[in-house]
């Protein structure tokens, strides 16, 4: 899994590429939390998440809660099919309910 982080005008754009699974969860937690630390607004691009498991889901939930605790707006954008399937399965589209847009296939 690769996490690309770009800071622009205080907006932290995080792009996740690859599998969001238990195998990379520890690394991902560190990267995500540190990326969130120094910005005002966060945008997570999920377009390239090829697979997500429960560990990945927990990370998303953690990021969301952390952002809310720190009063930083957070957007999940460009949900990949894997993410959409998972949200659908767990009925969480409402929780991660930032604009769910079907990414162009």
């Amino acid at each position, binding site marked *: 899994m690769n996490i690309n982080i770009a800071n622009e005008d205080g907006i932290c754009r995080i792009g996740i590429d690859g599998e969001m699974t*238990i195998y990379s*969860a*520890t690394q*991902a*937690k560190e990267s995500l*939390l540190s990326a969130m630390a120094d910005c005002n607004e966060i945008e997570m691009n999920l377009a390239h998440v090829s697979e997500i*498991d*429960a*560990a990945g*889901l*927990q*990370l998303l*939930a*953690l990021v969301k*809660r*952390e952002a809310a605790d720190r009063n930083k707006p957070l957007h999940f954008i460009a949900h990949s099919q894997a993410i959409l399937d*998972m949200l659908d*399965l*767990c*009925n*969480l589209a409402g*929780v991660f309910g930032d604009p769910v847009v079907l990414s162009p296939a």
Partner: protein
Amino acid sequence: MNLDEALHTFIAESRELLQNMEDALLRIEQSPDDEELINAIFRAAHTIKGSAGLFGLDYIVAFTHVAESVLDRVRNGELRIEGDLVAVLLSSCDHLVELIEHLAAGSGDPTAEIQEKSKAIAACLNDYLGSDAAKNTNVVLTTEPNQTCTSEGGGEVETDLWHISLRFGKDVLRNGMDPLSFIRYLSTLGDIHHIFTLLNNIPPAVEMDPESCYLGFEISFKSNADKATIEGVFEFVREDCMIRILPPRSKITDYLKLIAELPEEELRVGEMLLRCGTLTQAELDAALRLQHGDGTAAPRPLGEVLVEAQMVSSPVMEAALDKQKQVKEHKSAEANLIRVDADKLDELINLVGELIIAGAGTNLIAQRTGDADLLESTATMSRLVEEVRDSALKLRMVQIGGTFNRFQRVVRDVSKELGKDIELVISGAETELDKTVVEKIGDPLTHLVRNSMDHGIESAETRLAHGKPAKGTLKLNAFHDAGSIVIEVSDDGGGLNKQRILNKAIERGLINETDNLSDKEIYNLIFEAGFSTAETVSNLSGRGVGMDVVRRNITALRGTVNLDSVEGRSTTVRIRLPLTLAIIDGFLVGVGTSVYVIPLDMVVECIERAAWENAGGDGRYINLRGEVLPYLRLREHFEVEGEPARRENVVVVRHGERKVGLVVDRLLGEFQTVIKPLGKVFNRISGIGGFTILGSGEVALIIDVPGLMGQGVVEMERNGQNAESMRALN
């Protein structure tokens, strides 16, 4: 073990059992003391009830239970088998079929209409149970929630959803299991009505270990699976997770217990259950009130015991294991059979057809080259192709017995309806024919059978008055004959009244008064369209109503139908159908430059024209070893231009009992023929049944011998007076 699969097996088995039950019920009227039959019926009901219980199909269990109780009394000799009881049991059997089909259609719980019917039939069955069983009945008929004990805290909740609470253990992920995949698997067992994912247990960021699992789920689940199966989903995580599964309509106290057990605070759990749709607001209120001891008594020990009994699943588990074993055994016995989509077979046969055409082309080329090795190899190939064709066609052959047996029921029901005593005798049930033909023959046969019973077989009094046994007999018979299958429907009823048919036909303008018709021709007039009017019903006592439709259906299958009758004694309707609709062995003949195919099965012999011409034929009939044989010149019939060949040949063809000679120029030998249907434009051309493509790429028309015979007769009669001039032409 996939539950969907198991449910399908249950459905398939139930269908089979119900079929057996119906068969046994139909036979038992004749031999009411046959213990084997009684046991077979009882076993069918018993097995269905048992299996349905495993799948939690309470409505089937409830209904079957009543039927089973009645059957049990029969088995113990407390009840005698008699007509009315069999009728009630048959309707129960029908209703069970309905329930199973409803289940198979995946339509969920039975509709109000079906429940009404269940009750109505169960009520009839109850009449046979006597007083001691009355209490049984009450229990079995309550498929609605039992409301009586709500005030005691033991009431059931309204919904028919399972409720599953999951709190995954911390190490689940580390152990290589993904909670989401369990949910996914669960969703294959039924319908996740609502799922609530708990994310709140994730600790603060610093403490959170991304490799630990903090997830929980509250799921309301709609499924016909039994508890053991649902528990089985979570088999691998049972050790370190908290799993609570509440079956549909659990007692409110169960939910109470669940609420108490869950790590979250009560109100929150209650809210989740509410959101899942597992509990209604009122139920939740009642439950919480109950828990706080608010005005209601605490659950009584007895209630607890009951609750425990519901939770304990070891018998369910055992039964499920048993069932699995049974299914496995059943599977291995069935391993020799494969169910194949009929479309795939059709495709195969199409391909074989193309192969035959291509093979014929290769043969032709080989013959042209004259290469001996090539000829030999093509000959081998032709033989193999022929074998492939035969086995491909055999794949589609089914025994007609299945269709015949359906009529047991028809005969029974109709004879009850008509108040006649009629027995159905089936023979030749093992005769095979093409599946597509079998499917299409059902309706015409039903029509003929009903007709025979309704109008053919007389009432018992009339029969006795005529010195016949009071019980009428209806026979269904099938056999192979000259490349076709013959199906006979015969009755020993009153037969047809010739004079009445004649009068009617003259009145309708179908024939002239001066026409001289044979008995057979007269009887077969009832297949004419003009005979199917309401008026005819009374005049001819209904015989012939819709007979033209029967004939049309059968003609559409390239078959023929005719009727024999002895007045006052019997009527036999004979249907003759081709064995297959796709590929035949053909006999190739040439007329001028055209080539025609005659179905080989119908060809009796070929003779040279010179051999009989001198024997004194008059141009329309020939003397075939002393037999009068009408003949038809294909050259004239199809208006082929050109001079007739010097030495003509006659192909003698037979259809049914009639023989006709077809005069052709050349005999070209046998040819495997793939029948291609003619377009709609040529629909009305009789005498041609289709076309085929020869190896050379040429088109050859296939001669429809029965059609040609029918037409030939008419032509001969019409041309009767011109016979002289025709002969002059020749």
